[in-house]
């Protein structure tokens, strides 16, 4: 497996290597790398103003920043937690949809609609726990467990799979009952919940890829000498 192609400009090469080492939410990762790249440009400009040739200044700025191997783990952790919060918000959006599903399906299915209420409860708990543990005042008081992003990613995956199963069950039941319009509507809402949560948990799972199997995270331009 080869790393990203090395660019002649050490700043662009550094940014490319860092971006390649950051799986997960593409937009957030790109913004983080953009911010760091512009920080490198600022640092380079400062050395140039001191009289250093631009190429040397860029290499010095990269050296000051630390290698990608040093920087990537902290960036990955922040991105994983940002995505965990995104998944929690998706779960919070799903909970009311699933409660509407349950309300629609209960007249036709009776106790058979209970799994929808369970999914709504799981979504609510998932959202509340993840949001409280990763942001604001509670997160300032307590250390975020390292396993939290993994826990939320897989719990969310389970809930998303449950929503897909509920969609299928509602669609099948609608085909053989007189109350099919309500069940179809419930199925559509369940499918929407699955789409919302499923998209987010897929990205959350990508954040869990171990750092040492990603390309281009070793001693790259960050380790280059002046």
């Amino acid at each position, binding site marked *: 497996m080869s790393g990203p192609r090395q660019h002649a400009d050490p700043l662009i090469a550094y940014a490319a290597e860092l971006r390649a080492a950051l799986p997960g939410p593409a937009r957030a990762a790109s*913004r*983080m790398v*953009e*911010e*760091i790249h*512009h*920080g490198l*440009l*600022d*640092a380079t400009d*400062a050395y140039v103003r001191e009289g250093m040739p631009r190429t040397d200044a860029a290499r010095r700025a990269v050296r*000051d*920043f*630390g290698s990608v191997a*040093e*920087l990537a783990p*902290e*960036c990955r*952790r*922040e991105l994983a*937690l*940002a995505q965990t*919060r995104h998944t929690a918000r998706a779960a919070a959006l799903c909970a009311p949809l699933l409660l509407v599903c349950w309300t629609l399906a209960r007249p036709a299915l009776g106790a058979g609609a209970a799994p929808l209420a369970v999914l709504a409860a799981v979504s609510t708990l998932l959202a509340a726990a993840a949001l409280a543990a*990763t*942001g*604001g*005042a509670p*997160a*300032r008081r307590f250390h975020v467990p390292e396993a939290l992003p993994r826990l939320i990613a897989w719990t969310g995956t389970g809930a998303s799979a449950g929503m897909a199963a509920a969609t299928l069950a509602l669609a099948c039941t609608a085909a053989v009952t007189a109350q099919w319009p309500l069940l179809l509507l419930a199925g559509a809402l369940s499918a929407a919940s699955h789409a919302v949560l499923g998209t987010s948990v897929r990205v959350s799972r990508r954040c869990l890829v171990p750092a040492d199997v990603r390309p281009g995270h070793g001693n790259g331009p*960050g380790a280059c000498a002046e």
Partner: protein
Amino acid sequence: MKTEAVRGHLDGLLLAALEDGPLHGYAIITAVQERSGGVLELRTGTVYPALNRLERLGLLASDWQSVGERRRRCYALTGAGRRSLADERTGWRQFTAAIGAVLDPSAPAGSAPATGGRAPLGPVRHRPAT
């Protein structure tokens, strides 16, 4: 001062650098280094994920600003950030006073470095015993 020694105080240093107003990432790094008289060594890249973390915790707020072709993310202290900075300062003063009392028992009590309302960013210096 070594990077490892600074790391444990990074949050307080970043909050203190933003006390006088919003700054972008590199300006924060420069402010910390200037206020420490160049004594503190930072792996400057690690400041950026730390700023992201402080924003996630609600201690900072940020917005993107364009300066020419360069886009910069500017950070500002929130109310919670100011309270956290005050707590950091109190904790630091108690810590330096306690350590100073042990390491330099001949120094008069309460000779921890004056801060003049700013976080002490440099190494601890005690007045020599007279």
